[in-house]
């Protein structure tokens, strides 16, 4: 079967790719575009490791088809740091040691960034609910939440 041709934008850059109609956006990112920062955990929308933004909304890239992103804007972990250094959220994850094995980390950082863009001053409860779709089997979440809350404060210009 002929592959589909898709024109999209990834992390602000125009991007074209060919994919099978049944390929997920996650397949395309990792296998065709070499953007392997986005991880596959469950492949069924339960774990959040493959989180990306699609037209500004947080989604699981395993539940989006590559062909569906025609004309859309996709944001991945590779686009979180825009300058020379790390994004504040990335720095805070390091500072708080908010990761162990690291598989959930890209998804959590993409999700945390989406959270803080929607709600720059979340309560801990709001942050925990927003990030409930990002599973981490190592940390117990405490350090992750501390890193996110600290990021929020820093991004608001406090501390």
């Amino acid at each position, binding site marked *: 079967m002929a592959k589909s041709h898709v024109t999209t934008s990834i992390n602000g850059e125009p991007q074209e790719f060919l994919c099978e*109609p*049944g390929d997920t956006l996650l397949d395309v990112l990792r296998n065709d575009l070499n953007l392997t920062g986005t991880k596959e955990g469950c*492949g069924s929308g339960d774990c959040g490791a493959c989180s990306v933004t699609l037209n500004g909304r947080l*989604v699981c890239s395993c539940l989006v*088809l590559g*062909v569906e992103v025609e004309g859309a804007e996709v944001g991945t972990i590779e686009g979180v740091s825009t300058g020379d250094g790390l994004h504040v959220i990335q720095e805070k994850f390091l500072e708080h040691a908010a990761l162990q094995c690291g598989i959930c980390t890209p998804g959590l950082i993409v999700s945390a960034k989406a*959270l803080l863009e929607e709600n720059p001053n979340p309560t801990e409860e709001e942050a925990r609910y*927003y990030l*409930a*779709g990002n599973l981490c089997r190592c940390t117990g979440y405490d350090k992750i939440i501390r890193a996110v809350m600290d990021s929020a404060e820093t991004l608001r210009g406090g501390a």
Partner: protein
Amino acid sequence: MVSVVYEAPDSIEGAISLLANADIPAKILAGGTDLIIQTNGSTDESRLFVDVKRIDGMLDAKLSADGLDLGPSMSCAEFTARDDIRKVFPGLVEAAYLIGSTQVQGRASLGGNLCNSSPAADTIPALVVNGAQCVIAGPGGERTVAAEEFMTGVSRNCMEKGELLKLIHLPAPAAKTSDAYLRFIPRTEMDIAVAGAGVSVTLDDAGTCTAARVAIGAVAPTVLLVSTAADALIGTKLDDDALQAAAAAASAASSPITDRRGTAEYRRQIVGVLVKRAARIAATRARGN
């Protein structure tokens, strides 16, 4: 591995033609959060996906004096962000907010929740109590089906080959009317309802309930509109006795199964409790309207 054929028509007519003329199993693709997983587990050799999100109006919601015209494929994230809709239909917005994770809500839609037709779908009881009308377009023209008539069984509904859900219309609520939806899950987030209950009540100036609708989920093969529970509320001040009678009516109307989420006895009991609590919330909201 299912071989997928993908089409994204830009008109209702185009979608109907693709669906009606398909010679392989045809599926409507909205948010895809159920369909992609179901396709991964399917034994079909090939499937046609008709992506309806490029059709004008499918992703829009218009609130007017006539009520809400909801594009069935609008994501729950877009829907729950609409403060104007939350003011009028707070229970429906809460139901949409309960579906899956933030990520799933970024794609999943109310139309998809309805068409997937799970007995545990959170938005269906909330649609039913708000008198939602489903506008279905097909080769023979359009027809309108009440939300409580839409589901016909577990994962089954009234849609025929070639048809698609074009619009969900919710009539504007009367004065001093409001809704609420509650579900029970053993976790705090990211789970499927063990039981769910939606309630809408209308009060008069004296606080007497003049109209009510009660719908329950995950306790029967379909979401049920329970008129006996509504009747127990109408004409009362929604005092404890009335709420208890509505709860008993909802429990009596349920026909739950025992599965890993809960036993039939537990579900029958808890659905009444949810009706009682949802009615209290809806009444508090209605008094404020």
